[in-house]
């Protein structure tokens, strides 16, 4: 489950490629802040109305915030020993950057129109539009800074990929056009008086265009280093898994005659492997669910039964959690001894209380007929829970199995960061 209770997972600030309208700034901010995208967008529009602050801010974020999938980045930032190893299912990606292509085409058409206008009638505002084109063209070239490095088809040979080449070329054409249009403002098209200046301007434009490329190379180098570090971490985990699995297999081979032992080993190994592959692990002492799973593992190993465990919510083990776990263990042991599989275990953590249900499908029994000197249920389950201010009820009906219900109220002081209603 996502994170410990009360500590919302804040995803890092990245510009996601999915769900974006222009540069993904609003989407990224919304994901980072946990706010609805619509609100962030409205805010930017509002800020734009106030002296174009919104546009400035947007451009700033566009240039400075790298593109990436926030969730993927967050997953990579988790220590590898705690993340699951099996790959996650990928949702289908949009392969063609339609927004970019549309924007680029629009710009090219506008530039072409301008050239036509220049060839024909001269319009007064003609210097405004070229400036705009120049700016946007530069922006387009700069935007290659964000090209998603990890995309499969983008990772070809040092960033020399179709998209970045097209971007670079498009940016160059636009900047060149803008410069010529700007510089050759009052001159007829054939006048070459200022050609030197124009050439210089073009060169500056080219330098401007190439700078981000160089910047990107530098950044890629850093990414590569990080990737190598991750790679070695992964290798450590793989080695660990390899060892544990191999060891178990060797043990199984050695005890091939003892069916019980083999089953126990296989079950323990399966549980460990499953956890490694599919679960995000938590650091010790922060998760009641994790400690409950340890209890389950112990019972499963001892009695060679499977316990179907379902956990809803999670919390930091606090006062009385130890008693709850012990009582749960006792209930599980009883179920394994006297009941019949399948055994079910259900844990629910709410801001007010922690509840545990342990159920088996045995014959059931009549609680009143249990002799008073039988310590099991009375002392180790009911008494233990009562001393901690909790309750324990056992419901057993002949033929329908037994269900033990444990309930522990939570410390009121720790409520404040609970789920808001």
């Amino acid at each position, binding site marked *: 489950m996502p994170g410990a209770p009360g500590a919302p997972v804040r995803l890092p600030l990245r510009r996601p490629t999915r769900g974006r309208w222009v540069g993904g700034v609003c989407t990224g901010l919304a994901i980072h802040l946990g706010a609805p995208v619509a609100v962030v967008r409205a805010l930017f529009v509002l800020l734009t109305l106030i002296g174009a602050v919104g546009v400035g801010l947007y451009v700033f974020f566009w240039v400075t915030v790298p593109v990436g999938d926030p*969730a993927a980045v967050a997953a990579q930032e988790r220590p590898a020993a705690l993340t699951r190893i099996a790959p*996650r299912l990928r949702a289908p990606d949009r392969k063609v950057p339609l927004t970019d292509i549309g924007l680029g085409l629009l710009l090219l058409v506008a530039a072409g129109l301008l050239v036509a206008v220049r060839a024909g009638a001269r319009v007064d505002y003609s210097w405004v539009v070229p400036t705009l084109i120049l700016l946007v063209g530069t922006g387009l070239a700069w935007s290659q800074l964000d090209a998603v490095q990890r995309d499969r088809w983008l990772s070809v040979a040092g960033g020399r990929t179709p998209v970045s080449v097209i971007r670079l070329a498009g940016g160059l054409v636009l900047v060149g056009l803008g410069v010529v249009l700007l510089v050759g403002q009052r001159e007829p098209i054939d006048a070459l008086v200022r050609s030197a200046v124009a050439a210089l301007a073009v060169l500056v434009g080219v330098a401007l265009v190439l700078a981000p490329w160089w910047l990107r190379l530098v950044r890629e180098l850093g990414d590569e280093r990080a990737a190598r570090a991750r790679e070695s971490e992964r290798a450590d985990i793989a080695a660990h898994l390899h060892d544990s699995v191999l060891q178990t297999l060797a043990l199984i081979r050695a005890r091939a005659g003892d069916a019980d032992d083999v089953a126990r080993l296989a079950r323990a190994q399966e549980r460990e492997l499953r956890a490694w592959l*599919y679960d995000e692990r938590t650091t010790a002492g922060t998760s009641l669910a994790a400690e409950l799973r340890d209890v389950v593992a112990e019972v499963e190993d001892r009695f060679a039964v499977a316990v179907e465990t379902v956990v809803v919510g999670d919390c930091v083990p606090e006062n009385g959690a130890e008693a709850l776990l012990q009582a749960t263990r006792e209930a599980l042991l009883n179920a394994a001894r006297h009941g019949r599989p*399948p055994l*079910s275990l259900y844990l629910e953590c709410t801001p007010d209380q922690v509840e545990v249900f342990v159920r088996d499908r045995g014959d059931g029994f009549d609680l009143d007929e249990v002799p008073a000197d039988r310590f099991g249920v009375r002392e180790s389950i009911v008494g233990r829970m009562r001393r901690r201010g909790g309750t324990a009820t056992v419901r057993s009906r002949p033929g*329908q199995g037994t269900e033990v219900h444990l309930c522990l109220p939570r410390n009121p002081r720790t409520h404040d960061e609970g*789920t808001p*209603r």
Partner: protein
Amino acid sequence: MSQPPVADGVLDVVLVDDHLMFRAGVKASLDGRIRIVGEADDVPSAIEAVRRLQPPVVILDVHLPGGDGGGGAEVIHRCADLLGTTRFLALSVSDAAEDVVAVIRAGARGYVTKAISGQDLSDAARRVAGGDAVFSPRLAGFVLDAFGAAAGDVATGDDELDRLSAREREVMRLIARGYSYREVASELFISIKTVETHVSAVLRKLQLSSRHELTRWAAARRLL
């Protein structure tokens, strides 16, 4: 649209899993009223088989190689136009909520783990064919978690998509505690049909809800 999915008492099923041994095991364990009409072992072959055979039920592994890496969810996405007549029952070894919810949100009508017995799997396939939903205890637990039902966040109106009603929450809790539909029905003094209605309603909410936590949770795991 409601043509009987079970003709002459035998249900045609396409089985999709990337492990030959597992497919053989499932085939042997299903009861006599389930007939495997086709098999597939990766995303493209699964899509092809489902489109060609258009079976009433597809038993689909969540983790499949091939395609764009979307596994079972991708198969359902690509066959979305058949969802009216073909129902998908997801089958997984992982039991990780994020994998399960990916296929459910893609359109699967049920989810079971690979540890399930042949009889239970046959029943689940028939239930899915009849238009009902199949929830494992783990999926019920996830639903309670994702909808914040544990914190007492309960819907007041029937048409709310983002919260469970009090009754749906009760049903989900009992399923999570390991109760069968029959046991849930007798526990709540309602008919099995009513339990099925509640479970189908929850499935619909799970597929359609844009509940903030749910979408955020899913977005964080790249499911949307």
